[in-house]
């Protein structure tokens, strides 16, 4: 009896916080609603009215069911992980409603695919006729990716005044584990402050640049806002179907490149620089790791593209080769090429380079995906440490450290967790590749697309289309979700769900 009551209390506490996160994210629908109102997009306004009310009703209902237990039941790790993972799942369905109502997706599955792609800052698109979608829906697409980058739980925590006891556990559940300041609520607020300051700077600079390259002032503003939100969150969505190619502009590409590289850096690093600790940029293991891998991959890609005659001058190699490598490495997914050009023009070697860049990804506790530079740095250091140990006598003990905001001793636990997450990413990537080949896509194309979804990148070689098999769409959704939340919270949700089903099954059998 006590066990059943405890399970019910667990459910209530999870319900309350999930409801709270839903309310926080659904409130953002007010922005596209205001946009639609200003630009007289009446049908879109109705779509969002329906969607926001559905989300609010569910959110309030969930909060109601758990209200009497909040602050009475201690939030445990399992609660935090399940709150984060289930909020993401429920919000994917709720936020897909405006897409579905717009009629621009072939099915609700496609709508959910695009929302998950946005939340996880992947940037793959199944929405059709992008060039004719409303400003309201475009605003929503980019808000989704901007919020997804920082995290919906982070957003909810920023506004949380009461009931903040288990905040840290929910924060970790969303794939972030760095505390910028001792208080999690203030850390969440700081993440948002950093993002908003960059949003203003980025939008204004892209707006001005947009007018210089021939866009109308109002249109330039929205293009600037959307592109910045996407670049900062390393998302990869763009308001037009050609993505960055639409602008045909070197200056626009350079600006986006600066913003997505900055966006892929750790929030703790941003905070350290804001605090005046500029040396951290050079000392940090993540920036060192990113710089080395980006340099090596860019060099070899540029070399191959030049030698094979794909591009005949340096500017072209930079704009097409280096831009796409950095876009892949930061897991942004902005492209200034047609997807099929990777397959038909680039050849195998540059594609393999892109796959490696996509899998490595950006920094931990940033908006980027992939298995992250920090883990790569840890693995690399651990290999050096092991070799060192073998070469030296047992009596000589050397302590290995990494620098990430502070000096961290390279302990077994840290190395083990890095290996574990990298292994999970590799397994996810291999399953995705195998699935692609099963459905008849070439191996390299399947691997490219699998790396793109696993690393939450968004570059495509032409596999992701509305006509691809539904099984692949579902797998890609799962891969994006697992990749973004870094497995553990999703595993917790799966474990609890299966545990619950097992208990229910046994109970029924006993009856």
């Amino acid at each position, binding site marked *: 009896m006590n066990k059943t009551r405890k399970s019910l209390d667990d459910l209530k506490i999870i319900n309350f916080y999930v409801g709270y996160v839903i309310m926080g994210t659904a409130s953002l629908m007010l922005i596209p609603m205001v946009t639609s109102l200003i630009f007289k997009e009446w049908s879109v306004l109705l779509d969002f009215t329906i969607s926001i009310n559905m989300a609010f009703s569910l959110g309030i209902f969930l909060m109601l069911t758990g209200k009497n237990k909040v602050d009475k039941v201690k939030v445990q790790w399992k609660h935090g992980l399940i709150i984060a993972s289930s909020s993401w799942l429920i919000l994917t369905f709720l936020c897909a409603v405006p897409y579905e109502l717009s009629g621009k997706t072939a099915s609700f599955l496609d709508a959910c695919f695009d929302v998950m792609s946005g939340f996880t800052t992947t940037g793959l698109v199944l929405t059709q006729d992008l*060039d004719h*979608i409303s*400003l309201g829906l475009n605003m929503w697409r980019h808000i989704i990716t901007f919020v997804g980058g920082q995290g919906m739980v982070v957003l909810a925590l920023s506004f949380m005044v009461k009931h903040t006891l288990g905040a840290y556990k929910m924060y970790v559940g969303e794939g972030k584990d760095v505390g910028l300041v001792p208080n999690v609520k203030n850390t969440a607020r700081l993440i948002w402050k950093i993002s908003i300051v960059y949003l203003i700077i980025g939008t204004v600079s892209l707006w001005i640049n947009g007018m210089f390259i*021939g866009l109308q002032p109002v249109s330039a503003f929205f293009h600037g806002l959307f592109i910045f939100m996407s670049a900062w969150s390393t998302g990869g969505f763009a308001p037009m179907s050609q993505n960055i190619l639409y602008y*045909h502009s070197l200056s626009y590409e350079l600006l986006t490149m600066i913003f997505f590289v900055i966006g892929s850096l750790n929030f703790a690093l941003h905070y350290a620089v804001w605090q005046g600790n500029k040396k951290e940029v050079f000392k940090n293991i993540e920036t060192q790791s990113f710089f080395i891998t980006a340099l090596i991959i860019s060099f070899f890609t540029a070399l191959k593209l030049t030698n094979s005659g794909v591009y005949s001058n340096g500017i072209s190699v930079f704009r097409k080769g280096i831009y796409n490598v950095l876009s892949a490495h930061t897991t942004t997914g902005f492209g200034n090429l047609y997807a099929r050009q990777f397959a038909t*023009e680039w050849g195998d070697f540059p594609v393999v380079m892109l796959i490696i860049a996509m899998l490595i990804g950006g920094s931990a506790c940033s908006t980027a995906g992939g298995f992250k530079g920090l883990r790569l740095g840890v693995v690399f250091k651990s290999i050096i440490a092991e070799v060192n140990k073998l070469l030296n006598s047992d009596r000589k003990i050397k302590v290995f450290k990494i620098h990430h905001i502070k000096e961290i001793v390279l302990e077994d636990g840290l190395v083990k967790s890095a290996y574990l997450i990298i292994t999970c990413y590799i397994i996810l990537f291999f399953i995705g590749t195998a699935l692609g080949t099963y459905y008849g896509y070439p191996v390299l194309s399947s691997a490219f697309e699998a790396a793109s979804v696993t690393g939450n990148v968004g570059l495509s070689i032409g596999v992701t289309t509305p006509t691809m098999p539904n099984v692949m769409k579902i797998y890609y959704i799962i891969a994006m979700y697992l990749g973004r939340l870094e497995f553990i919270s999703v595993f917790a949700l799966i474990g609890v769900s299966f545990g619950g089903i097992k208990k229910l099954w046994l109970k029924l059998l006993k009856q």
Partner: protein
Amino acid sequence: MVKTFKTVILVFIIVFSFYVTCMAKDYSNFNGLIESSKKIDNNKITLKGEAIGECMNRGEYSWVNISDGSTAMGIWIKSDQAQSIKNFGKYGYKGDIVKISGTFNRACTQHGGDMDIHAISVEIIDAGGNVKIPISSSKKVIAIILTIITLIFTFIYIRFTKGTSK
């Protein structure tokens, strides 16, 4: 007489075959263009599509993007020619359907490796314009019902919160 007849037929065949070989290949599906980009690089082509977004003026020349419905392609066009395109496709608007003749570049050296078309001539085939987007009455009813439900839930939640805080 027979000789004259033969000569006329021969001239006709030569002229016609010359016309066929010189005629730019017509494209309305841009994916085909991308797939066979290496083959048709630097060739004269003709393509049809809807002008989308807006015209981006870059001085003497402008960029116009045209779409076949799923894929869009950048056209580098003289600014005075671009002015003939009045409507650009976006939400609530159908862009002019244009026929562009020009040189296809797989990786344009002038434009940083962009795949583009340097237009020679532009022809408006079908003028675009405003598209009326209907407002569904069933959506209106659903929106009203859901708003009422949300208000009821909010009211209950506030009452419940007040009750528990006492």
